[in-house]
Structures are given as C-alpha cells and as structure tokens.
C-alpha cells in the first residue's frame, strides 16, 4: 500500500474538508450541506430497507435481498478490519458461528426477545474478538490471515462438539424470537397485509445493515478511523506519530467481530437449520470475496459486493442456454450454476486484485466521472454555440 496524503484520503472518502481551515464561511456551509446529504442518505437507506423487501413479490428476488443483507452486514464488519485497518482476515466464519450459537442460546434456551438477544450476541462477539484480538496485535503481513484460517477450523471443532447447543454434526433447527412488541419480524403484518417470513427477516436485516453502515462509517471518519487508515498506510509512521496501535487494532477487531456475530445470528435464522459445517472456511472466503469485489475501504463496497454475490447464481440459472452450463438435473460435462458462479467469483477476485484493487465501487466511480465529464463538456459546448 502506498502512502496517501490526508487530502487524498479525505477526497477518497468524499469528505472534501479543506485542511486546517475549519471555520471559514464556505466550509461551514459545506459542512451543513454534507450533513444534510448524509442524513438524507440514511433516511433513504431506512425507507429502502423497509420498502424494497416488502414490495418485491418474486420469491427468489426476496431471497437474494435477504442473502445480500446478511453478507452485507458481515462484510461491513470485515471492512472495518480489512478495509480501514488493512488487516486481512478469514476468521469471520468463526465469529459468525459464535454469534449464531450465542443467539440460539439467548433467544431460544433463555427465551430472550429480539431486543435482548441482539445485545447479548453483540457482547459475545466483542468478547471473543477481544480474546482473539492479541493474535491480530502480534502478527502482521498476512500472518493474521493464516492464523484466522486456523481459527475457523478450531471453531468447527468446537461447534461440532458442543452438542447440547449445536446438535453436534447433525445440526439443529433454528427459530429465533424476532418480535419487538407487536411487530414480529418473523411474520410481518402491516395494515392487514401479511408478508412472508423471508420478506420480514429481510426488513429486519437491512434495518440493522443501515445502522451498522452508519456506525462503521462514523468510526472510519473519527479520530480512531484516521488512526486506522494511518496504520494501514504505514504502521511505523503512524506509531511514531503517536497513534496507539493497541487501541486502534483492538477496537477494530472487537467491533468487527461483534458485527460478524450479529450477521451470524441472522445467517442462522435465514438457514432455519444449522449445521456446524455452515461455518466453514468457505463462508469466510465468500465474505472476503464480497468485500474485495465490492471494494474494501469504501462505504458502498460491501453492499455492491453482496448483491453481486447473491444475484450471480440466480442470473446464471436463467442462462442455461450458454455452453457448459448445466441445469440442476442435467448430467454430463459442464458446470452447474453454483459451480459456475464460484468460478466467476474466483476469476473476478483475481482480476480485481490485479487491475482494480479498490473494487467495483471504484470502477463505478470512474464510469460516473466519465459520464459527468462528458455531460459537462457537452453543455459547455452548447453554451459556446449560443
């Protein structure tokens, strides 16, 4: 990673605040405008989180929206650690597993309602994050990545053997309580219309996603977030400038695992039947791929990556006429839609890392800049004509 100047970092984050001149008139106006834009975006986010799942009737599309929500949530957590702090990790399946089983324990065994088991899951995730955090503190340069792989295997061993809670290798059904007072996100009824369980859960997951995105974005733009980016770009320089490596790294690790744990609980509820193998290395890889393809270190990256991840297998199923694509029951040489989408993710991962390490978000931003530049040029030309 190369060093970026503060101004570049700010521009990259869309902050656009001039350095060292916080109180001039145009800046204050710009601040206010920025605040309005942010609040507006959050409001739109909440409305979309509720309206989109409820208005989409197609069963498959609703599933895509729910899957994308769960993976967005997990990737938002990973983004704090990998995108902003620059510590790649494949341990997310482990933290998601912790969250899923703690959620089942709190929600089903203890019978806590939604608003009580969510904090329990968050705290459990944070606690396990704090326990494993020292690994992240001690190791750099890809070693955390390798240790986190080990963590996933160790997690699978624990989940397989904690039979009372997890049902052992055979797994167990999941039915978490999802009601806040009269609003039941397991079975949403609004104005006499009853929505499906998937739609209801999708609304809940996306509301949580919007909150998580706002929280992570705020952390990323706070003092701690700047410390994290400084560490990512040059750890030694950051440390020499008085940044506390311990605080920044532990903080990122704890918040990231807490969010992952919550994503794990929703993941379990989506599956409805949970086996310890659900939290294999594959899940970690999928989340990392979602983040990298979408664009790590950006706010929109996880969302874009997650939708891409959830939509691709579905789109491929509709492309059975392509050569080498098998329909589900077809035998013979070729790839099923699932295999083909895994292959596409892998190839895309390689291409993104080689040619656009900042992901699809960056590609879209470039496209947008080109379009606006072209429009500007054209309007300017028109003004010239007149």
């Amino acid at each position, binding site marked *: 990673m190369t060093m970026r100047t503060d101004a570049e970092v700010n521009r990259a984050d869309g902050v656009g605040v001039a350095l060292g001149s916080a109180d001039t008139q145009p800046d204050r106006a710009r601040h206010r405008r920025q605040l309005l834009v942010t609040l507006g975006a959050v409001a739109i986010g909440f409305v979309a989180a509720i309206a989109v799942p409820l208005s989409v009737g197609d069963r498959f599309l609703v599933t895509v929206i729910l899957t994308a929500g769960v993976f967005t949530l997990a990737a938002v957590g990973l983004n704090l650690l990998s995108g902003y702090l620059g510590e790649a990790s494949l341990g997310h399946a482990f933290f998601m597993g912790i969250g899923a089983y703690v959620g089942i324990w709190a929600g089903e065994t203890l019978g806590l309602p939604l608003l009580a088991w969510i904090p329990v899951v968050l705290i459990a995730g944070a606690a396990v994050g704090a326990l494993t955090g020292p*690994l992240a503190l001690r*190791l750099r340069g890809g070693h955390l990545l390798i240790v986190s792989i080990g963590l996933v*295997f160790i997690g699978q061993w624990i989940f397989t053997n904690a039979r009372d809670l997890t049902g052992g290798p055979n797994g167990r059904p999941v039915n978490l309580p999802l009601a806040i007072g009269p609003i039941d996100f397991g079975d949403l009824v609004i104005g006499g219309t009853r929505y499906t369980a998937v739609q209801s859960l999708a609304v809940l997951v996306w509301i949580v996603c919007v909150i998580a995105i706002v929280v992570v974005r705020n952390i990323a733009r706070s003092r701690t977030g700047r410390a994290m980016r400084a560490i990512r770009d040059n*750890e030694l320089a950051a440390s020499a400038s008085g940044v506390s490596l311990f605080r920044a790294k532990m903080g990122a690790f704890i918040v990231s695992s807490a969010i992952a744990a919550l994503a794990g609980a929703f993941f379990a509820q989506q599956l409805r039947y949970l086996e310890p193998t659900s939290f294999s290395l594959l899940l970690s*890889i999928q989340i990392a791929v979602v983040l990298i393809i979408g664009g790590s270190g950006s706010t929109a990256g996880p969302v874009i990556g997650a939708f891409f991840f959830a939509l691709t297998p579905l789109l491929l199923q509709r492309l059975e006429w392509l050569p080498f694509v098998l329909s589900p029951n077809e035998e013979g040489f070729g790839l*099923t839609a699932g295999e083909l989408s895994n292959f596409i993710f892998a*190839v895309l991962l*390689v291409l993104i*890392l080689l040619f656009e390490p900042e992901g699809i978000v960056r590609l879209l931003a470039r496209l947008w800049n080109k379009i606006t530049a072209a429009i500007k040029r054209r309007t300017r030309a028109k003004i010239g004509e007149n």
Partner: protein
Amino acid sequence: MSDFLQLTISGLALGCQYALVAVGFTVIMKSSGVLSIFQGGLVLLGAYLTYQAHQGWGWPFFLAVAMAVAVCAALNLLAESQVLSRIRVRSNEVLIFLTFGLLLAVQPLVESMWGSDILNLGDPWGLRSVQLGPVTVTERDLWTIGASVIALGGVFLLFNKTRIGLAMRAAASDPEAATAQGISPRLTQGVSWALAGALAAFAGVLMATAVGGGVRPGLADVAFAALPAIYLGGLNSPIGAVVGGLLIGLTQQWAAGYAPDSFGQGFSAVFPYLVMVVILLVRPQGIFGGKVVSRA
C-alpha cells in the same frame, strides 16, 4: 508400545505428505516472498490428473503420476509468470488472496469435470502388511515414506549440488547481488514455482492413495494442514518445513491414538491448527526460521 510404534510409522507417512507440500510453500516463499495457497489447488489437480490418466485412460500408474507432476509444475509456472508477476500492489495479503483466487477457480472446474464423489485411484502400493519386529506396517505407508524421502532428497540435492540450485540459493539470499553475477531472477523464480507445483502434485497422489484416502475435492483442505507445518518449521526454511511436516504428522497421529474421547470428535484433525496458533503466539519465526515475522 507396539501401538505407539504403529502410530509413529503412520504418523511419519502422514508427515511426509505434509512435508512435501510444506517444502513447496517454503521454496516459493524463499524465491518470491509469496505464501501461495494455490498449492492446495495443485494437490487437488495432481490427484485428479493421475486418476484420469491411470483409471480413465489406462496409463500405467507411474507414467500417470509423472504426467500429473509435469502438468502441475507447468501450471504453477504459468500462475507465476501470467498472474502473480502482473500484480501492482505487492502486499502480503493481496498476494495471498490472489493465490486463493487461483485455488477457488480450480475447485469448481475439478468438481464439474470429475464430480464431488470420492474416486478410487486403485492400490498402486499394494495392500499387504509387513511385520517389522512387534509392529505391523502397511506397505503403502512404507512406500509413501520411501517415495517422499527420494523426492525430498532430490530437492535437497538440487539445492545443494547443482548450478541452478546454487543460483536459486544466491537469488534468495541477495537478489541484487545474484543478478549482478548474471543469475536470471526470472529463471530461478520459474524453477522454484515449477518445483513447488511438482511437489504439491506428488503429495496429492500420496494423499489420495493413503489409508482412508481417495481422490476427493477435500484434498485441497488437507493442504491447509501443511500451513501449520511451515509455521512450525519457519517460513523460509525448507529443512524446517520437512521437520515441521513430520512433527505435525506425528503429533496428529498420536493425538488420534491417545487423545481421550472427552477432547471430542475431530480433535486430531484440528490439532495442527491448535499447534499453529500456539507457535505463532510464542515463537512466530518457527523453530528454524530467522527473524522475518514482524510484530506490532
């Protein structure tokens, strides 16, 4: 006592398989500074290509193995020259994810070609057992150990007795000085990657023909168990990789034999990773490694 010896022999056989993969890891690490997870994909391809040639086309077993080893060496060479060399952001994480991407691309292709069932590679090593004093040893364990010793011995002869081996060691210890002496870094890197590919493919064949083996998609995961071996031995040390591989194989088999039931199902499989976490916390540079791991 004879139980212990029996477990030790099968542990050595398992350790040899880990050692082959682990030496491949360190050879690449030394020459290019990359921890190539693609090794797992080559283990997988090595086993499946041998299966295809031996069982599918009816080639003699050793010819099939030779073909698989050659193809995997060539593939790894391609991976280095066509993919890894094009990277612009040379951070360890990006490089690891890149090789992960290659592994992930291979897996669905293998599954679509050969399905996900366990395939039988036959019993090229024979099914007989040999009585060695109080211990009954299966012939295939002996073959596995013997073949690994020959392969690893070949690698160390290559390193220590040939010009190209000398060039590789020179390039690893000081790339600039080596280049100034007329050693082509492209050549030494290419040889390293090809060698690692060949070792991975050979290990794949051994794993597929081991007791309870078979040609299966999960072989790529077996290669992950070689990661603890290289951390135990030290990332930069091929000798360390051999020792680490053997230690992991031995302790894993002992754990399988002696761990009480209360340690739970799958304890021996997770044991290498427990070792790895402890090693990385206590001595991140491994037993034989120099100080290369930086801590915060």
